[in-house]
């Protein structure tokens, strides 16, 4: 029983990390239907920038964090203005591929500015562990859970009640109609990229405070969003729920299957689940099903 509780708690905590990365992905998808393949690299770059502010420049946390957020806003604006804006109204696959190029470019910048390529952030969160019954969880994960919930709530409220949020949803639905209503689509895109970069920066800080900054962050980002598609590409709630579901499957499934199967079986459990879910519910668990007309 203690074992099971431990698996559940670990699974939930890890799942929330996935969710947080996925939120940044969903944000862009929701407003412009662009799959952001550079997400991992954006996470990497903002982690390094945080490192630069905290360790290299030596700013205290309360100055460094706003600076990172500002940097992420700027990054989002630059990305949208110079790579995606010129491609508005072009085939969507071209936009997706351009983010692929963007990923390489950002990776190059990181190599250029921080050539030593591995570093640890100073400890932002307290290190002591929390005991829940017989199970143990590190405080870092709890912070991740808390912060992702906050981000999730803010985003949900924003999309439901704020003018810009509503405009973003409308843009995703029908760009031409939105333009006709006098909503500046370019501004909507630009904002959604800026917000997405902020979310990516936040998840970057959290993940690298757990595991340090390395190029592995790119793949972690890639894995997280492929995992969270389970929830549906355009649903924040889906992303938030799918993360823990996958985390649980990994941890509990891996926990009981590894001794009977091969080692490392937990690494494919999420992907087997994805395929099964996709066959049963093609738009993810919570994705919006579009009715198609000919």
């Amino acid at each position, binding site marked *: 029983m203690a074992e099971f509780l431990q698996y559940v708690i670990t699974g939930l905590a890890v799942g929330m990390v996935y969710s947080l990365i996925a939120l940044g992905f969903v944000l862009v998808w929701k407003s412009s239907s662009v799959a952001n393949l550079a997400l991992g690299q954006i996470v990497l770059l903002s982690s390094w920038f945080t490192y630069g502010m905290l360790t290299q420049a030596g700013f205290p946390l309360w100055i460094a964090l706003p600076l990172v957020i500002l940097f992420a806003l700027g990054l989002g604006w630059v990305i949208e203005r110079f790579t995606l804006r010129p491609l508005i109204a072009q085939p969507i696959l071209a936009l997706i*591929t351009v983010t*692929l*190029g963007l*990923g*390489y470019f950002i990776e190059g910048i990181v190599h250029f500015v921080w050539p030593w390529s591995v570093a640890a952030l100073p400890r932002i969160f307290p290190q002591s562990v929390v005991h829940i019954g017989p199970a143990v969880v590190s405080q870092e994960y709890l912070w991740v859970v808390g912060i992702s919930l906050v981000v999730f709530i803010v985003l949900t409220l924003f999309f439901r009640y704020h003018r810009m949020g509503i405009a973003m949803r409308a843009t995703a639905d029908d760009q031409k109609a939105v333009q006709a209503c006098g909503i500046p689509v370019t501004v909507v895109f630009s904002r959604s990229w800026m917000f997405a970069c902020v979310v990516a920066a936040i998840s970057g800080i959290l993940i690298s405070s757990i595991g340090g900054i390395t190029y592995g962050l790119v793949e972690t980002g890639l894995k997280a969003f492929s995992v969270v598609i389970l929830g549906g590409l355009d649903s924040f709630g889906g992303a938030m729920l799918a993360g823990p579901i996958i985390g649980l499957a990994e941890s509990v499934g891996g926990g009981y299957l590894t001794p009977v199967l091969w080692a490392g079986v937990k690494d494919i459990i999420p992907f087997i689940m994805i395929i099964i879910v*996709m066959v049963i519910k093609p738009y993810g668990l919570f994705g919006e099903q579009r009715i198609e007309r000919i």
Partner: protein
Amino acid sequence: MSLPCGTRNYTYADDMAIMRTRTHQVLFIVFLVLLFTAPYYLGNYWLGVVNLIGITLIAALGLNLLMGYCGQLSIGHAGFIAVGAYTTAVLTGRFELPFLVGLLGAGLMAGLVGLIFGLPSIRVKGFYLAITTIAAQIIIIWVINHWSLTGGFVGIKVPYASIGGLVFRSESSQFYLIMTIAALCTFCAKNLARTRVGRAFIAVRDNDLAAEVMGINLLYYKLLAFFIGCFLAGIAGALLAHWIGYMQTEQFSLTESILYVGMIIIGGLGTTLGPILGVVFIRLLQQVLATQIVPFLEETMTFLPSGFATGIGPMIFGLAIILFLIIEPRGMAHRWNLFKSAYHLWPFSY
């Protein structure tokens, strides 16, 4: 198809011809001659690069059929290439079967695995399908790593390709093998796109509901696209295996899969020329950056600390992709067509 001024199709045969004019034919023959005499003027290294391009092209043609013609987004192509590579490795390396058996077996095996992972395509579309193909790749690689037959993490040795008594040992003999197969695959892909099957693919891509209404069996054609696309991936994998000689799963990364998608989009989806241009562009850029530009910068700019150019490689690579797409979002093949029609009408282009 735009034709040069004054060229008219008078017969059906004219209409069907791939090469319509004398110039076209001559240029094509010149191109083939230039290509197949490459071993005489290219060094072993550049010949190796051309071989790599040929292998990549075969896989990209498969992906183009699947994605460009049939509209089934796949980001797991490297996984299917791996299936082909390991099939031939096991067949020829472990069971010592002839190369041709390995090659065909690789294609069929990859095609079958593609069929299995293509099944969700019946219900799933677009980016959701892309994610299931990512899942396919990760599962395939995991199975290869943990299956005793494939050598697992130690990897597996692959012998030289050989047909009858002819062993493809040297770079140039491998060049002829790879280029012949690549040319054959290009020819088949080009023609397939013009048959009933190809047109059905296009109908499915443009609107699968409409296609179904018109009497196209969606399940059959989608799975056929997966089979053919993955079959070509398997052939490419087999050639890669015999060319490199040792297989280990880290060769088939997710980044490689994403890059394949990038190649055919940069080249131009749904054209035969597209994959060729895209593959040549990306592979050459990678090579030129790694073996020419970065070392050149390191050698000439000695006043900077060595290693500064390391980051420049990915930067130029990314920038080139971004610029190409911004300038020509419909792919290089589209630009080529524009150039061709301008050339046909020159100097009276209005």
